[in-house]
């Protein structure tokens, strides 16, 4: 039922390997999602989202190899950058209550 859709014939041993990693990543994502929903503070949620993004990057990369077309790693690349930018933007928002301000150094330190 859950047969790998496998356009390029990669051998079964290799597919097994990637399936194992995928399952591990899915379990990890479930736990991380639980932290994002439970997280008592916003920082816990943010940490969980950041970690979830890294797992998504890995999942996409592994999925590309699993289906035998590793052409779509660009998406994983974009993801890792977007994930970082998003986290930093939210943190900047927490810290200065604003996204655009650049004049905080004098009174903050």
């Amino acid at each position, binding site marked *: *039922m859950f047969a790998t*859709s*496998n*356009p*390029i014939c990669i051998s079964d041993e290799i597919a097994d390997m990637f399936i194992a990693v995928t399952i591990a990543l899915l379990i990890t994502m479930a736990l991380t999602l639980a932290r994002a929903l439970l997280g008592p503070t916003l920082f816990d949620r943010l940490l969980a989202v950041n970690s979830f993004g890294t797992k998504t990057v890995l999942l996409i990369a592994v999925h590309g190899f699993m*289906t035998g*077309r590793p*052409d*779509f790693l660009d998406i994983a690349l974009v993801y890792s950058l977007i994930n970082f930018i998003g986290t930093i933007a939210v943190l900047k928002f927490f810290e200065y209550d604003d996204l655009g301000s650049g004049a905080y150094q004098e009174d903050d330190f």
Partner: protein
Amino acid sequence: MSQLIGLYSYWIVIVLMMAGLYIMIARYNLVKKIIGLSLFQTSIFYLYITMSKIEGGTAPILVEDADYVYSNPLPHVLILTAIVVGVATSAVALALIVRIYESYGTIEEDELKAIEAAEPDA
């Protein structure tokens, strides 16, 4: 069982859609309503992309001298357009909300209605 797996994606799409609709109806905060709108939009994207997938297919990027089954590219095109338009809609809505907050000092729907009722000229 095959019925369950075959239709599960549609059911999840409906759950997402109803989650968005519920936020739009039952929450008074305007920003939260826009979040619900985004949820609703994404569920529609899902519905389309789900229908374009074909069993054993691969991404619709042609590979020379190989005999692949490709998923249907047309829903992808429609959704590409829809994503960008959706974000444009959200941007305009959020700008309106910022203006409302500056004029009335609140973004809760019922408080806005109370203010409107209090001063009929405005």
